[in-house]
């Protein structure tokens, strides 16, 4: 597979390490009343679609950036690649 790194262009996926569902960015609030359930779901009940999947890849043998890759799990076609830090900021992870 090739990942079209937003800063570096096409790079072999062998340079990357996979983590999984990009919703792992959305770490719950520890102080919320339902924190126990929220953390359980956050960590364990991840998206696993047969189709478009947003997922985290880490460019370990490259620029060390975490990326959000939108990829089809049936065809492996990649629709878009974003820097995870940008996505995280957009999603309001500001502290």
């Amino acid at each position: 597979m090739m990942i079209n790194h937003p800063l570096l262009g096409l790079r072999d996926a062998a340079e990357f390490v996979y983590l999984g569902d990009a919703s792992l960015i959305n770490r719950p609030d520890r102080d919320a009343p339902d924190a126990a359930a929220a953390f359980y779901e956050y960590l364990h009940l991840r998206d696993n679609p047969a189709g478009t999947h947003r997922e985290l890849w880490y460019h370990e043998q490259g620029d060390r950036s975490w990326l959000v890759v939108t990829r089809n799990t049936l065809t492996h076609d990649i629709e878009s690649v974003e820097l995870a830090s940008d996505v995280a900021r957009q999603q309001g992870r500001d502290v």
Partner: protein
Amino acid sequence: MSTEQSQRSQRNRVDGGLIDRSDTRTFEFNNKLLTGFAGDTLASALLANGQRLVGRSFKYHRPRGIVSAGVEEANALVELRSGNLTEPNTRATVTELFDGLVAKSQNHKGPLAFDVMAVNDALAPFLSAGFYYKTFMWPKAFWEKLYEPVIRAAAGLGSLSGEEDPDVYDKGFIHCDVLVVGGGPAGLWSALMAGRAGARVVLADEDFQLGGRLNAETHTLNDQSGASWAQQLIAELESLPNVRVMPRTTVYGAFDHGVYGALERKTDHLRLSEGKPRQVLWRVYTKRTVLASGATERSIAFGNNDRPGVMLAGAVRTYLNRFAVTPGQHVAVFTNNNDGWQTAKDLVNKNINVTAVIDSRDTDAPFELNGVQACMGAQVASTSGRLGLKRITLTSGKSFEADCLAVSGGWSPNVHLTCHQRGRPVWNDTIAAFVPGADLPSGMLVAGAANGELSLSDALRSAQRVVNEVLNDLGLSAPAEALPTTSDSTVDITAFWHVKESKGRAWVDWQNDVTTKDVAQAHLEGFHAVEHLKRYTTLGMATDQGKTANVLGLAIMAEYSGKSIPETGTTIFRPPYTPVPIAAFAGRSRGKNFRPTRLTPSHDWATELGAQFVEVGPWLRAQWFPRAGESHWRESVDREVLQTRASVGICDVTTLGKIDIQGADAGVFLDRVYANTFSSLAVGKVRYGLMLREDGIAMDDGTTARLGEHHYVMTTTTANAVSVFRHMEFCRQCLWPNLDVHLISATDQWAQYAVAGPNSRSLLQKIVDDIDLSNEAFAFMACAEITVCGGTPARLFRISFSGELAYEIAVPTRYGDSMIRELMQAGEEFDVVPYGTEALGVMRIEKGHAAGNELIGTTTAANIGLGRMVSKKKDSIGNVLSEREGLNSESDNRLVGFIPVDKSRELQAGSHFVQTGHAVVTENDQGWMSSVCYSPTLGHSIGIGYLQRGQDRMGEVLDAVSPLTDSSVAVEVVSPHFVDPEGERLRG
């Protein structure tokens, strides 16, 4: 042997061809010395010498000969070369002849012509499809003792030598705009046009001679012969700097996003590789791919169609026209299309006797051939000849003499690569074959026969169309060049698969011995799905992966089930297109080079001392330092421990991961990744940190020092250095992207040595420049950036893993070698001892520190007695889920110490604990011993391990049982801190 002699012995050699008669090559087949020429394959040379019988089939050990002239060969598999260079199952049809080649036939007991295993053939009625599933079940014990060993012994074709492959292999990476797969007419044309347009082109062909069917046919292009036209194009391609022409290179697989696998055979055509890579496995990154992989001819199933001498008609032309060999002197043709006629014509033109053309089509002959009998609407019912074809008999009863029968069942486009990403081919009735479907791998276009455009002019037209589209995609303009005018012919096929009135078995898959009857039986037993057919009969599962057999088999299945071929479907094409040696996929990553080796800065010094080294993850570390007179490793280790505890020892601890953390929010960040607090740590101090995974389980531990207000240095365990760094980058970029914190690995930057023991301070005081190391000035858990040895920058940490007064001193790596030598010299007066990982391990067990054997990814903070360290005052990774009920049970395991009740007994790591006298069964399992050692300090074996409610069971006696090692030792539960439990030494 003179050229003349070798000519004479090659009785089937004819005129012409692309061989070099001035370059005679001598080779050995089954210990018989034969000759051929440069440009031959092993198969063409064998045929030239009249050797028709070349092997035995898999199941019935039927005599078999050469059927094809390419990679689709099902029968002519040999063991090539000898000794540790033996290559089993090598297709003679694609083995380039070299001087000194040695080959043997396979899969027979006794001589090839008198294989005793051929008895299987007589038993064939009882060995039909799936027979083994229905028997060998009684009596039960016989399966393992008798039946299975017999089946296994008969399995397989060729043999491995059992020795290490002595050749070297390499890998490589190629980037291009256009990858052209196949160097036949369509491939050559596409590559040339793309090359002229300025694209970066790679043209790969599996053959050593590019040109594909142009070399095998008698077509002309612009009044040139096909072969010379091809030569002309190749010459131009080779002259273009932006084109890479790669003969002997098989593109074996199409992977995601324009990644292709290609195998280049560098030295397979030579007698020896002489230290150069035998093969190179290329990973090709391309924007567009032109698949011009051609087509493969199929056979027709009829009685005894497997006899040596029965061949594919196109292959007969290849041997005749390219290799100047006629496979027989009296050739008959059996065809369902015009292509078979072309074979007859080419043979006649070479003055070979063609006894008959049998055409299953009930039409007029496409053309007349002088002296050749045409049998239209006729079918071959059977053949005869014990080890080679002598006669054929038609269903009409008519019979003909023939030592070769050229069979043409039509051509199947080589769609394999179009299907490697689960694309499905579609059926084309006109050519009675599957052609590429619409769901091609992205970036791939198909040209020529591979696309079902079987005639030469169609192939070139499609190449032109495809390459124009490719160039347009790439933003390049296509050169204006008219296609050559070609002589041409159409295939004009009427589908015909098998002769129903066959006499004798009609073979579908030659190599796996699948007959039309097996297909019928599979249908009878309900194995209708095409995958069921394949799996039940083993159709298409041999080394050729059914290249000639699959379509035949499923067409016959379709007939039985009354369905159309497209309704019946196909099995899945999987990479590789042709088999690839396992060693080629490994490349250089084998032996000591399997994975990188990391060496510590003191490695050379330790080597000089004769240290024993041990693999610790990627690192090599000194395990112990034997001294003269020590005959057992324990002697060395005991000495290292005792001397360290008595005076001072030095150990290279560079391998611990070191992460430099800077930023205005560094402290906040650490508070979030560690379970305990670091923002409150004073500058110049070190703290032990416990890191949890988000699921609340211990991930890693180590010490982190605060060197400045915004500057920390974290140490991780050796094993987890990489994964902890990755995790922290995740936290930094994905969870808290706005924190001002920056990470960089400093593991390789610093050579770090532990200096431990009561004299460590005195020793270090000699090394450091102007710094007071007294307890008051530099207390336990202090750290500082200092200089040593007159100005070399260094970092000093007062931390202890051994439980002794101890320090770790770090200098830039370039000084590491010098540093260890200086430390040893400075320590001479204290009788300093270097110690290795074994002594390190003994001292940490004596001290009760959890390490790799204890932190195994299921360990909670509570398990190791650090439950209170998980601060509840702040959020941190793992904080919430560490509170789950299952991680906090009263009966949980706790890390405790164990001593044998009988001190002379040795403990065994991996023992389980059961209450004294209780049965050694899962239900009574109360925990396990994680680490043990002989404690030279205490003079007996000690261990630490996990025991249910261990903290409440001090003094209890249990059995530490290890049925695996036949040991059971009564142990007493004790504190894991065997030495200096109050920690007076390390604070002293």
